[in-house]
């Protein structure tokens, strides 16, 4: 069970958060102008490294902030978090 530091609420238990996947590249502004390959690439290639990975977490049972954090998938070490908008 991780302790995640919410930029607004401070260190909180993982059970307050919902994991929302690794931080993927942004969705194309207009999907109709992307190549087929580019679209499939966007949909099907989420980052999945052994080691540090940027992830999106949602402080669902707290302040509902959307948080970007860097977690090491080997050691579970969490580097500082920040709000996704920043």
């Amino acid at each position: 069970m991780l302790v995640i530091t919410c930029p607004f609420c401070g260190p909180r238990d993982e059970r307050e958060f919902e994991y929302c996947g690794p931080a993927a590249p942004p969705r194309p502004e207009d999907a109709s102008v992307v190549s087929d390959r580019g679209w499939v690439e966007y949909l099907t290639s989420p980052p999945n490294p052994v080691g540090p990975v940027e992830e999106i977490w949602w402080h669902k049972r707290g302040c509902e902030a959307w948080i970007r954090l860097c977690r090491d998938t080997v050691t579970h070490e969490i580097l500082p978090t920040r709000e996704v908008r920043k």
Partner: protein
Amino acid sequence: MKRGNRLPDGGLIDRERQINFTFNGRSFTGLAGDSVASALLANDRMLIGRSFKYHRPRGIMSAGYEEPGALVEFEAGSASGNEIPALLPLREGMRVKSVNCWPSPEFDLGGVNQLLAPLLPAGFYYKTFMRPDWALFEPWVRRAAGLAAVPRAAPEEGAYETRNLNCDILVVGAGAAGLTAASIGAASGLRIVIADMDRQPGGALLGCEAWIEELPGTDWVRKTAAELKAADNVRLLRNTLVWACREQNLLMARQNPERSGERERNWRLRARQLIIATGAVERMMVFPGNDRPGVMLASSVRNYVHRYAVRPGRRALIFTCNDTANEAVPALTNAGIEIAAIVDTRPEPQSVPTSGIRHIHGAAITRTSGRKRVRGALIRHANGRMEQIECDLVALSGGWNPSLQLWSQARQPITYNHRTSMFVPVAKAAAIRCAGAADGCIGLAAALRSGAMAGAAAIKACGCRASAAIPECSPQTRYNAGPWWHDEAPGRAQNAFVDVMNDVTLADIHLALREGYRSIEHVKRYTTAGMGLDQGRTGNVNIVGAIAEATAADMETIGVTTFRSPVAPVSFGSIQGTREGSVLLPYRHTPLTEWNVSRGAVMYEAGARWRRPGYFPQSGESMHQAVNREAGAVRNSVGVYDGSPLGTFAVKGRDAARLLDMLYTNRFSDLPLHQGRYGIMLTDDGLILDDGVSFRLGECEFLMSTSTANAARVYRHVQKFLHLERPDWQVWMTDLTCQWMNATICGPAAREIVAALGTDIDLGRGKFPFMTIREGMVAGLPARISRVSFTGELSFEINVRARDLCQLWERVIDAGKAYGITPIGSETNHVLRVEKGFLSLGHEVDGTTDPYDLGMGWIMSKKKSDFLGKRSVSLRRRRGVPRRELVGLATADPAQVIPEGAPLTPGGRREKSEGVVTASVWSECCGRSVSLALLQDGRARHGETVHIRTPEEVMEARVTGSCAWDPQGTRMRS
């Protein structure tokens, strides 16, 4: 006690308090302070049970949780299997019995397996039972496997519980090192927790004579523990086994009850700094017959003598490869145990020999004799001469294994130290450190020093100042051990046990190596060595040594297997604690639950933990009859339905319309004020996520509804899109579910009922058309009425504040009496929806369909260049692969209802299916069963006959349109 082994004095026991217990039905007496093991030994019970595979006689081998030989189970009310007797405090009236033997450990029928032993090597079930079929043998092998029986019922008294605790420094283990570290921590003012698995603190100090700061070891422990207890910032948890080390220093601990009436308690401990002072376990020595009752660990013999004043034997042979066994000699001789000899595998004397004791160097035990108790051992001297020595106790000291389970679980590195022949931790992580014997510091002086250093370092890491005051004790020489992994054992390796609990022998290890297993992890899994309840604490390093010798590899290269939680067996009950059933996942109710129950509603969960009425049976009615009556009321007169759990959201802001355009496949930006529109929401991979109606309440304000089950998912979906992809859009989505609650009045007479309630809203046909929303007063309550329909009939959804719902409901029922208004449940709602061909999530929307498949291509906007899912749908459909499409089915026998989920196959033959029945109900108003199905190319096949294949029969049905009732929709628009 006639045949007693209790010494006349000494021990940490209360001789005034006798405790009665039974073992295998016979009554015995022990003393307060005894463990079950010490009480059994005091009564000269060395033979405890039979072994896992070969049913060999087994006795007590140790005094701690490393016990590989003896397991017991409890009988009666507190039935519990596979308990380690050395860890169980003796209690009055305890009923204990042996495991894995019948009728008794002395005479056990399963003992025949000993004769079959040559046929049962490692992995025997992979080879022996392959032909004709493993399934033939499996039941028999499964029944023979395992040790104690699984208890038939839950324990009679007490409840499990879970607690959370935070601290600055957690010290695991209250031995010499742990107590020293905690004492230093106590002085710092930081919050300290010290957890120890034993009934009393002290660790190894309880089992040997020692002097610390001019006090006997046990007195020093008592004084230190009392000081810790008195400190406000220290918490001492006794009886507490720390069984898991998770990420970021989260530790799980199980505390055994101290009083009757309590059961186990699980602690979730979060520590800024962790000190692992879990000590070390003495290592077995591997030679033929090393499992015979009477063979014990040397430190455990000393422990029984010192802590319990019990003499486990009369004449002991000590077998060792290191310095520590010598230290036990004075205590053993004082207890009246005759030392037959000390057999040391090292060729040269390493320390000053005890006078008057025979020392044999460079020798080894090659076999033991005796049947249910060791009677002697055969020694091979350095020059090859063999000598038989009589004894009833063999005390083994094969060196020490630091207890690194928690360290290993934290993924910290471990290395091999050649001087001491131990796997020891490599200090690395800042927030975790080992101390004492766990850090490889064998001997009291080294442990005290190590504990003090670790305590001081942890305090500094917490940002406080500390001075490491090291308690003084008698000086010791540096610990030395010569590696000795097993006897040569020519031809008799199959009686030389490397894992006593799982009956794994040296021969099994050699077999695994011959068959090509090299990695220690593979050898472990193939032979099951180290996989028992004791996790091979006493034997694992011998296995590494045996592999190293057989393959000429380095110990370091082979390494040890990764330890996993739990460190020792933990009951599921303690992990779960109080979280069960409705406490874990409470049900959700609307204010009408009480009314529904009082009217005899059958309540069940209907998505998202909502407990809703399924149907309202009147006296003597079956579910089928009740549903027909309720559905008939809606079609012919009027019904009322509690639609409150439907997901409801306010979407507000400059970009609200833009957001809905992006989320739904159709357009919302051109929706006129106070009008609503049905929309389908896709995920970006082109599959349907949800559907629902949204109303425009203002230029920049919408009221959005989602299905009940999906409300939370949709909320997350929208929030994620907004926060991650469009953070610059000015729009807010607010959850209003259950802020407004509603009574939905549906049926041809609905308008009359609403009028009868009294309202300032103009209900006239042209004034309040289908798919519009109005605000006003209804029955004297502020309300919003929307004209949507989930039933295909004229409907008014009257939304009021949650606190007004009961009042509204009573008024509706009153006003509807003249029309026979009928409350309807989820079952009827489902029937009405299927008659109309309306989508149900989980039925027609099954995670594979898109709107085209459901005959709703019109909802996919051509004007919008982009919306979520558009690109993926077009990409997928461009391939032109035939799709399963929504159709209706009319069964050849109109009365026949098809089981939902039944496959459609060509001609009803046993072939690949061409579709699936998604819903099927009896429709009273159509006078036949009505079904929906997803059928390959279905829309082009209207009128065709298709076949449904169930295990019992093949049914025929005609393909129809998906809407069986009022396809033009005139009734709901009326």
